[in-house]
């Protein structure tokens, strides 16, 4: 799997700056995902059941074994058979909409980036015949859409309407998600994880314990990583409203050190737990996140 060719349509639509100009979330997700998929040589994902649903035109990436050759002989066109129950997993997207996510110096704020990412993942999952569910949370579950094959539009609608919430707290919503999930599946958590690593681990561990494949997307703005402010700046916490005056000559270096320690701690702990953890810089294109999802999807299929 190669990276998108620079300048190609897929690469262009994976750029956050371009995505920010598309207001229709479904169109956005479709554009991204179709372009993304079209860049792949082969669709590695297959699904089959005994209940015929419909014919559809062959699309690049479909397994050629699914082509109905009889129909081809009659119509001289390639069609593949669709079957009901082709979906073999459920994908639950958990998006952190706490106030801290409403920050961004890149073209997209973390919340918009997470919204776009969630939309694309939902569309991609739906296209792969997975059942799609959505949970929006800050310190509580603000909205939850249970996974279902036909919940894509509902999920996209919720994502398009969402507003930033209040203070964030991972444990309570994710524990609730774990408790309410009846089937194992893929749980994608999109958050900035502004909690001590132990609390984050404690919150996520319940999902893993219940047999879910957990994918964590850690969204950080470049300013959160580099802290490009000088001593003349006062910073205000988006969630608590606490202000702090930057001082000291090496506060930025200290900050970056603490952030890196935080990230490394999370990464280490999640590796230990077998949880897929991906740090996303919101100034980066979406492809890394999509690839990571597809890799997790494949892993999930293989593990079943």
């Amino acid at each position, binding site marked *: 799997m190669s990276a998108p060719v620079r300048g190609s349509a897929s690469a262009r639509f994976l750029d956050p700056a371009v995505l920010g100009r598309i207001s229709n979330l479904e169109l956005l997700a479709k554009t991204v995902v179709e372009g993304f998929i079209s860049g792949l040589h082969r669709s590695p994902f297959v699904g089959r059941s005994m209940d015929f649903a419909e014919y559809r035109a062959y699309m690049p990436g479909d397994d050629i074994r699914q082509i109905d050759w009889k129909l081809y002989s009659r119509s001289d066109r390639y069609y593949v058979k669709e079957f009901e129950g082709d979906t073999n997993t459920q994908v639950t997207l958990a998006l952190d909409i706490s106030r*801290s*996510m409403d*920050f961004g*110096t890149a073209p997209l704020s*973390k919340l918009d980036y997470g919204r776009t990412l969630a939309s694309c993942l939902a569309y991609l999952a739906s296209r792969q015949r997975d059942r799609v569910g959505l949970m929006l949370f800050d310190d509580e579950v603000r909205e939850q859409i249970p996974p279902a094959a036909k919940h894509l539009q509902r999920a996209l609608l919720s994502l398009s309407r969402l507003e930033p919430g209040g203070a964030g707290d991972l444990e309570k919503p994710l524990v609730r998600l774990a408790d309410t999930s009846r089937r194992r599946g893929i749980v994608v958590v999109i958050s*900035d994880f*502004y*909690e001590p690593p132990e609390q984050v681990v404690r919150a996520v561990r319940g999902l893993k314990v219940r047999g879910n494949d957990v994918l964590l997307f850690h969204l950080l*703005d470049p*300013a*959160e990583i580099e802290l*490009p*402010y*000088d*001593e*003349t*700046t*006062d*910073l*205000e*916490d*988006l*969630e*608590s409203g*606490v*202000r*702090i*005056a*930057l*001082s*000291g*000559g*090496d*506060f930025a270096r*200290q*900050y970056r050190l*603490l*952030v890196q320690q*935080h990230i490394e701690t999370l990464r280490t702990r999640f590796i230990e737990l077998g949880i897929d953890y991906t740090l996303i810089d919101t100034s980066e294109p979406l492809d890394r996140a999509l690839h990571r999802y597809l890799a997790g999807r494949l892993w999930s299929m293989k593990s079943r």
Partner: protein
Amino acid sequence: MSFLAPLFLFGALALAAPVLLHLRRRRAKTPQPFPSLMFLENVPVRSVKRRRLRDVALLVARCAALLLLALTFAQPIVPSLGAGSEVAAGEQVVLLLDRSFSMSHGGRWERALAAVSERLAVAGDRVSLVGFGRQAEVLLPWTVSEQAPASLLSGLRPGVDGTDYGAAVRAARRLVNQADTDRPVRVVLVTDVQAGGWDRSDRNPLPAGVELELLDVRQEPEPANLAVLGVRLERQQTGDRERVVVTARVGRFSPGPGTDDEPGAAIPARLELQVDEREVETLDVSIDPAEPVFEVEFQPFTVASDREHRGAVALSAVADSIGVDDVHRFVMAPGDALSVLLVEPPGRRSQEAFYLRRALQTLSDPRIRLESAVAGSLQETILERADVTIVLDAIADLQGGESEALLARIGAGAGLLVSVGPRTASALASADAFAALPEGLRPPAASERRGGSDERQVRRLASLSTEHPSFRAFSDGFRDAFTGVAFFRAEALEPRAGDRVLAYLDDGAPLLVERPVGRGRIHWYATSLDASWSDLPLHNAYVPWLDGEVRTLAGYRPRPPSYRIGEVAELALPLPLDAWTLEAPSGDRSPLGEFLDQRRAAAATLPAAATPTAPDADPLASADQALMRLDQPGFWELSTDAGEAPRLLATNVDAAESDFGRLDADEFAAGLVTVGEGPREAESAGGVAGERSDAPRGRLWWALAVATLAALCVEGVLASVRQRRDASSGAALS
């Protein structure tokens, strides 16, 4: 180091501004939102060095610029090495004490002495004291105040002189220029601020940088003052008797409006005219405030013409405060008369003298004693009597002895007017007609004959030296007076070296040529004085011109009936100075020559700062002429044993001192100080001022100014760099 304008040093307090600015943390107006302060709250170095100065280089540049700017405006003075061992502590004070006689009024003198005494008692100051009236005298040269003699003020009294602030300021300038450069100089003027003492046209202010303090010692209300301001003498000649009418001018002065005891009441007073200390007439007058200055005329009276008389108008009133100005003394001398000798050609009575006689007989002040003589038969005695000799077309007829005597008389101060008529014109045509005349009497050589009686060519007056005393009557313009005057004939005179042409005809020919001879002068008139060669005698300009001619040629200067204290009298005596004895108003008698010698010696020993504005004694005095300064009120009498009648000089106090009109203090002070900062003038004052030099201070000022500019440039560069850095940082954030 001291400073000329130390108040500007307060500007250095502005240094606090950049320091505070650099200590202050320049914060954005609105805080920057940030997702979480979870990590920043754990940054251990927070609040360390919170008050640290930012941009130290920029701060240093700004502070240096401000400090240098304050120093530049403060004008530091760095005493040069070896400039004196005295430690510069207090200030240097020049005390100018008004000693005019108005200071004796209403307790002013006591207040002035108290103020001066208080100033002299300030420890650490260098002080000098100048007393002034119309002249200034250094009473105490620069001295440390502790060393000022205790008896300095005890013997001081107000004088009888007038006030001249210009003289005081000139003395102060000299003292200021002798002062140390490392200490500020203050001039304290202790006076009653009389309006009459300041001549606004006297632009001679104190040097720049010198502070003036005006101490007004008047304490209102003060009573009114009455004074006899002057007299005017009018002479009436009836036959051989001369009657004199004395008119006195009387004034009433109040210190200020509404300060009089009874501002609206008339003050009764008595005026007494005295001659030789005997009462002649007494008049009772009432001096109304509505007419503060008025004239009182006494009855005419006859005076003996053999000698001079002591006259006085004395005023007596109850409500008067100053007595010294209540008497005005004057000299009643017999009316002056000038002796004019008309010299006519031999053999015939010239018609030329007709107009001339008539014109001269109309002159009354001075009167003209007219004598006639014929050229070739002049007696030496008649020549000796003549103040002016007028030779009517007879210069070529003078004999050798006559001409020699005439020339000698002119050299001694008499005058000669030579008119040119037909006889002289004929003589001018021949080469040796004037060979017998001495060189000084020979007319300006005629280069060619111009005009002639036959031609009747009319010429007009083209120009006139109106500044010459002969033409003083035409100082406002001669054209109106001489319009229509026709000159039918005039001989061409060619001035010699030293001659001066006083009038030209419109063809460029000189009409009147002056030749100085010794103390006298000769006027050559290119035409006749009758109506044959010109019609000038028929015009109005004839008499006033002749009046001016006679006065000028005679060297006549009328002697005033009285002098003001401080004025200089010109002594023109018929006998040598050594023959006279002088009796001063104080009663002291001394030979005049000895008295004048003492005055000269005293003037020579005066310190430079006290050089009087007028000489006490004329250093160029001749044997029978001298200038003498009159410094006492009263009568000065010059007497001799050689039979000459005594000569009198009357001296009075300055009438301006009686007027209490007050100067506007602000205007007065503004007129005495120099606006703007600059170095004190370096005047040469007896070689003392040569020790001072303002050049080092000027260089220091320029150095500070350049350093200030450099600091500002550095600050600008550093601020620009800082601004660019901030801009690039901001762009990175956005």
